[in-house]
């Protein structure tokens, strides 16, 4: 559920997907979902892996309706975010970094 949990999944799946290996994420037994997990595990894959590649290589099993809905919303948000051009995102991230430094 946590960002850390999601990051753990991301760190396992990202290298495999970049190497064009198929990955299956099995959610058997998982009944409670929270978007922070999906943001980190799945959403950030869209940073530099195309949706077509993810559709081809990444599958989900035993993901119930609730999890599926949240995942779809996360993917929708992430596609919008990462679709912003690199310059825009870099500008945003620079502002954020400066603000963090000023706190």
């Amino acid at each position: 559920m946590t960002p850390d949990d999601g990051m753990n999944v991301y760190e396992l799946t990202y290298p495999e997907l970049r190497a064009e290996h198929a990955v299956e994420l099995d959610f058997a037994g998982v009944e409670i979902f929270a978007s922070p997990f999906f943001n980190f595990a799945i959403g950030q894959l869209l940073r530099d892996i195309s949706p077509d590649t993810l559709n081809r290589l990444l599958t989900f099993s035993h993901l119930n309706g609730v999890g599926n809905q949240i995942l779809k919303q996360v993917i929708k948000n992430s596609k919008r975010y990462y679709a912003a051009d690199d310059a825009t995102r870099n500008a945003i991230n620079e502002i954020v970094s400066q603000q963090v430094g000023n706190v």
Partner: protein
Amino acid sequence: MSVTLKIPTINDNLKDFDNLFQLLEQLNEDCSEVIIDFSKCFFLRQNAVAFLGGLIRLIQSRSIKLNINWDSLHKNIKMNLEQNGFMYVFCENKEPWQGNSIPYREDKKQDKDGLVDYLAEKWLGRDWVDLSQTLQNVIVGTVWEIYANAFEHGQTEIGVFSCGQHYPKKKELKLTVVDFGVGIPQNVRLFQNLPDLPADEALKWAFEAGNTTRRGNVTGGVGLDYLKRFVKMNRGKLEFFSHNGYVLINKDEETYQKRPTFFGGTLVNITLQCDEAIYVLASDTDGDAPLF
């Protein structure tokens, strides 16, 4: 300087929240001692219990001398505080017991499993609200995100405080979650580089689906959307207080207001209706469409 906080009767109408926040406003930099007195208090709702717990921990964290006049507690209040475990945490060996309370809880650090259990078993799992297991899981997941947000964004050093209550005559089930961190408007102002952004506008931005002040290159901002939808369906109420901003979400409205009092952290007050038929959120029908 010694400050006496005379705790008034606290329900959970807007004026009651004003009274709660004004207690914190009485603490100033010169304060070396705080006395908490309950002699004028004849009722404390769950919001007050959660807030007072956090207030006590905040005072302790500042190494201010604290004197809580437990003898000033009226009998009924004391019994309720014993039942919900507040007294057990702060002064007594008497263990809490199950009743209409959802236990008072402190989380200095994020305890994922503990919080899921608290929400699933102690809040929703008491059959006060007729929920399918699926919908219960949805609500647990979305309310859990309120805690997750507090830990990720709140920058609170003393943690997050919760308490709930079932009101059988009113057929309401309530939960309050509060942190004494930096508040939502602070984070939004920093993120947008708009230091003068009014609190109500900052909250409005924060509540838009997809918006997040999360640092780094990862999106956020989905969970609250589900909670909003559910509360509207249930004819319940969702309230957020942060700085002088206030958000009210119910089936009729989603409003963002400025309040006359200021609270530097964030307080969430959730009200569910126990006698409303609740339906599972409709699933998408585009099952064959690609996921990405």
